[in-house]
């Protein structure tokens, strides 16, 4: 007899969101590191080459992407601390509150970064 496994369970709880955000921001940060190495290695082609790369990266699009990077690092880092807390046995029964708290904390530096970057984005 052939058994059919039904589709996977789709979690809607806050913990599931935290899990996916953690995974996706982790991948985004890893991808950034790769691109970062590529950009920095342009220095091999001499000072002019490096300056050209830096000028290219001053475009508003890249500054916006940098804001995304800051957001990813804040989310990943703060949620990482939340997971470390659980592994140490703290706050397991307050996981939702801790996640919401971590995200509120993440918003503050992000807003400051945006305020600094805004003139560069608008030009």
């Amino acid at each position, binding site marked *: 007899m*052939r058994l*059919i496994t*039904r589709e*996977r369970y789709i979690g809607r709880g806050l913990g*599931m969101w935290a899990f996916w955000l953690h995974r996706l921001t982790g991948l985004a940060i890893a991808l950034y590191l790769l691109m970062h190495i590529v950009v920095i290695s342009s220095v091999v082609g001499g000072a002019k080459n490096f300056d050209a790369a830096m000028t290219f990266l001053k475009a508003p699009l890249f500054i916006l992407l940098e804001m995304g990077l800051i957001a990813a690092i804040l989310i990943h880092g703060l949620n990482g601390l939340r997971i470390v807390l659980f592994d140490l*046995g703290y706050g397991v029964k307050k996981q939702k509150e801790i996640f919401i708290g971590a995200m509120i904390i993440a918003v503050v530096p992000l807003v400051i970064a945006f305020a600094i970057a805004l003139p560069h984005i608008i030009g």
Partner: protein
Amino acid sequence: MTDSIKLTIYRRDPDLDTAPKYQTYEIQPEPGQTVLMALYHILENVDKSLAFRASCRSAVCGSCGMHINGKNRLACETQLAPLGNEICIEPLPHLPVLKDLVVDMSSFWRKYEKVRPYLITLKEPPASGKERLQSIPDRKKIDDFIDCILCACCHSACTLDAWSDGYLGPAVLAKAYRFVADTRDEGGAERLKLVGSEEGVLRCHTIFNCTEECPKRIPITFGIQEMKKKVVWGKLTGKM
């Protein structure tokens, strides 16, 4: 008269070996009617071929765990009224379907047996010939975890369980914790060895789906994390 409601039910007949389909039944709900009562109504009056598991009708036996409107619940304690006019009933996710809403639980029971889910004692029983006594605060420690009815609602909601065939899963680990936290039990070290592996507590990614879905509101992830702590300390101090 109340409006009729539509029940869309996952159907699959293994004898026909065709792809699963969804069949919709329209019923007139009665006040206080549960999903299980509605299923019995369909079985008795509309479609005698519908298969589902149920027994006690009072959220004690754990037979009627189902995926109802996107959530794992016990059909017997879930009322129709708050679910709206369209209700989708499916078998528990990522377990093999035997027929309609009946899933194959054999992998679940195999994992369950692995953690030795019974009291292990080394000391002689009390001379009085009565039960092994426990203080009230000690009993409080296992209050939540003795409520487990093994309905597999948490098990089939666990992302890591879906990803890894070998993972013991939340229900099994919660049962292990029920005995690890029990002061009368003396099999703690052995049990921690059983769950202290890659396929045990260390596989848990603290997603909390199990805790979200437990019909008995057992803080399952808390139990898993408590054991994780014990396992890690045991390994660091060389006691395990």
